[in-house]
């Protein structure tokens, strides 16, 4: 569904993405993992067209994304930091996005109800806590039941109850054969959710494998142990320490 071919992007001398090629398909839940500054957000933003890559191609359903912006109606995006105009109320923000997306008339308001956003819809954005803003971002990402969900640190700042709710929602979308791309540093949140793992380091793709494969290779079952073991394989320097 999404094809990424030899994507390279640098900021000055710093290479944020270095010749990355990947392919994602329907029904997959792909986790982008890697240390801070490894290029996860840059990869996500390139798919959304927010970052313009130097070389390489991104195709969605066979069409390159650089020529046309209409492909973005298939994508629901939840940013890492959601900031909205101070004096708008939650309801106004949601209505605005609905008016922009006139092509879509069926709304999925499970999360708006589930996360209790409808109860605080008249609050202005300035007075919201970071967690509530995160909830608004989540609601907007799921509102149009998009084919592709891109979630950048979806659980950062959410309380445990909301995290569980969001995870259940992601699961139910996955069962409808959607593609979910997410990054998170909290591996336990991805446990049981993710089917594939992409590991990036210094802008380079280290591995892209299914969780089952990784469990076989490492002999571990817990996701955080699997990833820790794989990082040791990838970084032989650490063998000296251990």
């Amino acid at each position, binding site marked *: 569904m999404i094809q990424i071919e030899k994507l390279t992007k640098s900021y000055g001398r710093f290479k944020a993405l270095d010749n990355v090629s990947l392919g994602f398909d329907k029904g997959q839940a792909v986790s982008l993992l890697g240390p801070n500054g490894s290029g996860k957000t840059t990869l996500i933003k390139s798919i959304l067209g927010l970052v313009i890559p130097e070389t390489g191609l991104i195709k969605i359903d066979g069409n390159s994304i650089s020529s046309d912006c209409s492909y973005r109606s298939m994508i629901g995006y939840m*940013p890492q930091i959601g900031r909205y*105009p101070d*004096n*708008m109320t939650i309801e106004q923000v949601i209505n605005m996005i609905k008016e922009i*997306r006139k092509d879509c008339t069926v709304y999925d308001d499970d999360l708006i109800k589930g996360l209790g956003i409808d109860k605080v819809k008249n609050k202005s954005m300035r007075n919201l806590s970071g967690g509530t803003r995160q909830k608004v971002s989540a609601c*907007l990402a799921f509102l149009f039941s998009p084919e592709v969900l891109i979630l950048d640190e979806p659980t950062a700042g959410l309380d445990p109850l909301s995290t569980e709710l969001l995870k259940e929602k992601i699961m139910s979308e996955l069962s409808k054969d959607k593609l979910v791309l997410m990054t998170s540093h909290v591996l336990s949140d991805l446990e049981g959710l993710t089917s594939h793992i992409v590991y990036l380091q210094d802008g380079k793709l280290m591995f892209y494998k299914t969780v089952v494969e990784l469990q076989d290779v490492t002999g571990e079952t817990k996701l955080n142990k699997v990833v820790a073991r794989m990082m040791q394989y990838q970084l032989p320097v650490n063998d000296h320490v251990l």
Partner: protein
Amino acid sequence: MRTIIKYVSLDLLRNKTILIYTALLAAISIGVLNMDDNTSKGLLSLMNITLLFVPLISILFATIYFFNSIEFIELLLAQPIKRNKVLLAEYAGLVLSLCAAYAVGVGLPLVILTKQMAALVLVVNGLLLTLSFCGLALLIFVLCKDKTRGIGIAIITALFFSLLFDGLLLTFIYSFSDYPIDKPIVGLVALNPIDLSRILMLLQLDVSVLMGYSGALFKKLLGSTTGSIYAVVCMLFWVAVPLIVSTVKFNKKDL
């Protein structure tokens, strides 16, 4: 696009800075116009206040606003809308509310208290200045990555046009006073929107004492009508060019 303009200006019309700006302009206008029976003098004072404050406040407020809405612009760009539309809609929403502030703060008192043609020219001047300096702010936002640096450049730009430019022009006139520099000066004045708007206003009020060298040259070479038209056309360029450059550059900007 209309949706975004609507919501952005609705948001900004409830912004405290804009409300204070409106109230301040209104207080100054009413105060100055009531001070003297001769409204021409009041108009002149208002012109000076406009030339000093409108560019500075427009460019600063707009730059800060654009940099603060980066995440919001990202959210909009994740929707199926073209980049140019998002950028121009943000600009239009901002300009609408700042122009509304000026129109209510200065325009309304002028309509009520004076009956001069020059009053209308002053309002048009203020609105054109708002448009062009917001455009410059947009350009700064598109070209700069960093908010602090952007605000610094905005302050320098405003000071350059309101103070430094005249000094440079004066130096130019003094150093080349032996040569026929009348025409180049009329051309050089076009490089500063604040000077253009001052001359436009003074041509209307016909107070030659205050016109200065460049203003007098303007009148001598072009006459009142042609001079006014020339000034307005140059001002419109100052609105359009930053906008066009911004939209072109924004297509390549990483967010």
